[in-house]
């Protein structure tokens, strides 16, 4: 099972004076169970792409297929697709409206007709997944939480529904460095435990390198790269051409190479790079 885009074009205000080609000939394949990054400079079409994945926007040309279901403006199809693809939008805490955190997290489940027991169970499970103690939090108002806690509740309100595909549009923007890592680590744990697919839109290359094995790079509405994250970041010209930057770990290994250091490390994400640094140090027989 997978999400596939076939030659998708999207034009905003088609036929109007302000008509704008936001997506051009996008063909993509996203495997079930993957952790995929979507990157690209501002205005490259990331959010537009994301809104195609659960039928908020329909392609001007081409097809979006979610597990054999071609997305169309048909009510039945839309209901099916939205039941499978959940989106956490930018600053999701801006959508809070309920009096208690329980109601907020339960909103999606209720809309999809969960029974009372199912709602209860899903809400508790989702809160635990994002590292918030249900007993303490569920009765509080979502508006009285700290920034990091609000973000987690917002994410919980999507994962409570238990969709197969979870898309997050810059979920860590505005969070402190500790919460950033924690939120992504929670998603990775969830993915490993339940095999959901996580699609992460991000401007932060360090986190993409760390968590996403696959990456989709958009440039001016077209796919500039699709494949393993490592491969993308080792192509410096491509990274620059698409207006992005290298993660710190890649910069470090390149800097070592550039100044002819005796230490050599793999170009890889942080933890793997540190591992190879350790090896290199012991090879040198550090005193």
């Amino acid at each position, binding site marked *: 099972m997978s999400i596939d885009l076939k030659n998708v074009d999207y034009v905003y205000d088609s036929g109007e004076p302000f008509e704008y080609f936001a997506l051009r000939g996008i063909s993509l394949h996203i495997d079930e169970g993957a952790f995929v990054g979507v990157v690209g400079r501002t205005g490259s079409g990331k959010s537009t792409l994301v809104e195609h994945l659960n039928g908020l926007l329909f392609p001007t040309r081409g097809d979006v297929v979610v597990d054999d279901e071609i997305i169309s403006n048909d009510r039945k199809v839309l209901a099916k697709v939205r039941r499978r693809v959940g989106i956490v939008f930018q600053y999701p805490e801006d959508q809070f409206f309920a009096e208690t955190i329980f109601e907020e997290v339960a909103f999606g489940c209720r809309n999809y007709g969960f029974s009372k027991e199912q709602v209860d169970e899903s809400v508790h499970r989702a809160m635990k997944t994002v590292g918030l103690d249900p007993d303490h939090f569920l009765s509080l108002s979502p508006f009285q939480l700290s920034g990091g806690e609000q973000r987690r509740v917002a994410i919980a309100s999507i994962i409570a529904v238990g969709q197969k595909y979870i898309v997050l549009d810059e979920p860590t923007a505005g969070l402190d460095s500790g919460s950033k890592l924690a939120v992504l680590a929670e998603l990775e744990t969830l993915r490993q435990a339940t095999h959901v697919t996580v699609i992460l839109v991000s401007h932060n290359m360090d986190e993409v390198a760390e968590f996403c094995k696959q990456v989709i790079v958009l440039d001016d509405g077209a796919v500039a790269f699709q494949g393993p994250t490592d491969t993308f970041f080792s192509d410096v010209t491509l990274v620059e051409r698409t207006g992005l930057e290298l993660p710190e770990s890649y910069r470090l290994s390149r*800097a070592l190479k550039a100044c002819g250091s005796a230490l050599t490390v793999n170009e890889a994400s942080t933890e793997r790079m540190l591992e190879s640094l350790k090896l290199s140090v012991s090879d040198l027989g550090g005193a």
Partner: protein
Amino acid sequence: MIRLDKVSYQIETSAGAVQVLRDIDLELPDGSISAIVGPNGSGKTTLARLVSGLLRPTSGNVQLLLDAETHTVTDVRPGVDVGLVFQNPDNQLVATTVEDDIAFGLENLQLSHGEMVQRVEDVLRLLGLQPFRDYPPHRLSGGQKQKVAIAGVLAMKPSFLILDEATSLLDPTNRREVMQTVLRLNHELGIGVVIVTHLLDEVLVASRVCVLADGVLAAWDSPRAVFSNPAIVKRGELVLPLSARASFLLQEHWTDFPLCLTPEEFARATCQLT
């Protein structure tokens, strides 16, 4: 120089008084670059607003030192002495076009028409915003909007510029561009800069870092001193730069290996290894 002397700030809520900041002592020299870091809710925004004169401390003083010899001080005037730019540019742009937005602060200063036109032109040129002068804000990209917000503040010619997570909504390219602009202003015009941020790169350009934890000043020191002190790193819930982690790793074998903060510095230091 801006001087904070035993500054505390308290707010009254329905649940009682909340002490947001306690006994903060800081000195921000003219033309310096400082950073304010700390976890969500540690009081960074509150501190930024106190420094810019938008909030008054419950106790203590925030003052502008005019003359170090005679110790003449005055209150900080928002906009005039300190310009503040914050996170969401959409909520900072007041007027319906870029040009008019830049003029907004100048109108408040009651400048003459000629002076306003001059300053608007200067700032548009300085930030490369001339092509967008007639644009309404909602037709600009996030990075462009944030530049307009900075332009509006700069036109008032403050001696300090405070950026409260001003780049957090931008992509790497725009972020770099905005930061470079700010550094250039610091360099060319001698504007003092205070950066409130969660991002490492932005901490590293500062000569001093103010680490807040729970409303208390946990450290006020150089980035190097801050990152080399595990106790401070822990209290401020900071994440170490990767190069620093790598340095610590090397220190297990070469005890005199220096603490490096950037990849370049780290690479250079490893070349000195024997």
